[in-house]
């Protein structure tokens, strides 16, 4: 009888053990429903170009490299994104034909860039594009040139006159 009890106890243990395990080691699926986002960081919200005598001799002034406008972008969109630029000012103080931009930043995979000075326009132009994800912030540097300096008069009483345009950097994905 005693042996039967032990056997019965062992059987119960054997039967209960899997049940106990099932209650404490179940599985759960974790699903991430990812969607594409884009971020833009305008590092230089405004730059000032102050022409010197040499610049007036050349009839242009420019801000290149670190002195230009840095814009950072990133996205998890598999199709990448386009960084576009325009000047939509109703009355641009610097003539659009005199305000030139380019970037030395290499385009992303399957992308393109404006590598030579090109006049800004009121419509968006693709400054830099990538056809792939950009998981970390990438700095896209804009070199800025203002030409025909002789057309921009100084203040009537001497000193300087401010001429400022607003550039809009747009990020879009297909």
């Amino acid at each position, binding site marked *: 009888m005693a042996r039967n009890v032990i056997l019965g106890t062992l059987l119960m243990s054997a039967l209960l053990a899997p049940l106990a395990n099932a209650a404490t080691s179940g599985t759960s699926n974790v699903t991430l429903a990812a969607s594409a986002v884009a971020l833009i960081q305008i590092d230089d919200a405004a730059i000032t170009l102050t022409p010197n005598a040499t610049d007036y001799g050349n009839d242009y002034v420019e*801000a*290149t490299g670190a002195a230009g406008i840095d814009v950072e972008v990133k996205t998890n969109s598999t199709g990448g994104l386009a960084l576009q630029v325009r000047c939509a000012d109703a009355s641009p103080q610097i003539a659009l034909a005199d305000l030139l931009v380019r970037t030395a930043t290499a385009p992303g995979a*399957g992308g393109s860039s404006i590598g030579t000075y090109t006049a800004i326009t009121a419509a968006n132009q693709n400054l830099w594009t990538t056809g792939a994800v950009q998981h970390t912030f990438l700095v896209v540097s804009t070199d800025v040139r203002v030409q025909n300096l002789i057309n921009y008069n100084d203040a009537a009483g001497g000193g300087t006159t401010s001429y400022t345009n*607003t550039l809009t950097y*747009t990020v879009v994905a297909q």
Partner: protein
Amino acid sequence: MMAAVHGAHAGIVAQVAPVRYSVTATPGESATRDILLSNQGADPVVVRVRLSDWMLSEAGQMNLVPAGSTANSLAGKVEFEPSEFSLGAGESGHIKVSLRMPADGPATLWGVLLSEVRPAVPKPARFGPRAIAELGTTLYLTRVPAERIRPEVLGLDVRPAGTDSISVTLRVRNAGERHFYVAGDVAVADSNRTVVRMGSFGNGVVLPGGIRYFQWTSLAGLVPGHYLVTATLDTGEPELTVGEASFTWPMPAAATLPLAEDPLR
């Protein structure tokens, strides 16, 4: 040449989620979506929202054009609110977008909702530009189900690129009424079937009725001989499409090569 350039001013940090919505709706049906715009910068900003049309070149360049100027415009079929709002530092705001699928006209419409983000207090500038940001959420509205796409691969070209590189170009046509995306990989194998170069065509949309080409360029660095280029494409259909083209290196001249297609799982 570096002229005297004064210091720059730190600016805007903003995020849009998502960057794309693809909405399938029956004619007359309305759908609502939500766009989240976040000001991750240290200063308050003002957001202005507007709709724009866009066109796509065969090379995949997106060109924004005024709303209502294309045949597939969403103008008049989409409403959004608010159209203007302010966000403090670290704040986020929602834009509610309502789309209504018409019963007639093009079966697929597209556009982009642009959220212009500018500082609430403009940065000072003297002689030079200011910079502001704009983030887009691309919208597709279609009454064609996703399983009724009609991709057609038109060809696979292998050409020399300069003296030391090869360029592989894939041309795809959308013969259907719904947009689809193409993603593709390319591999170059030698006569022993050993893969010697691999790459990706990237990923991009092909609009209804449109043609799009995808290009992959690689330094060849190949020993003279015969090679096989295999392009494996995912167009969203249940089966992958495989295109093959062979070439001899060095390549004597540019040549368009035939495409062979095989369905793969």
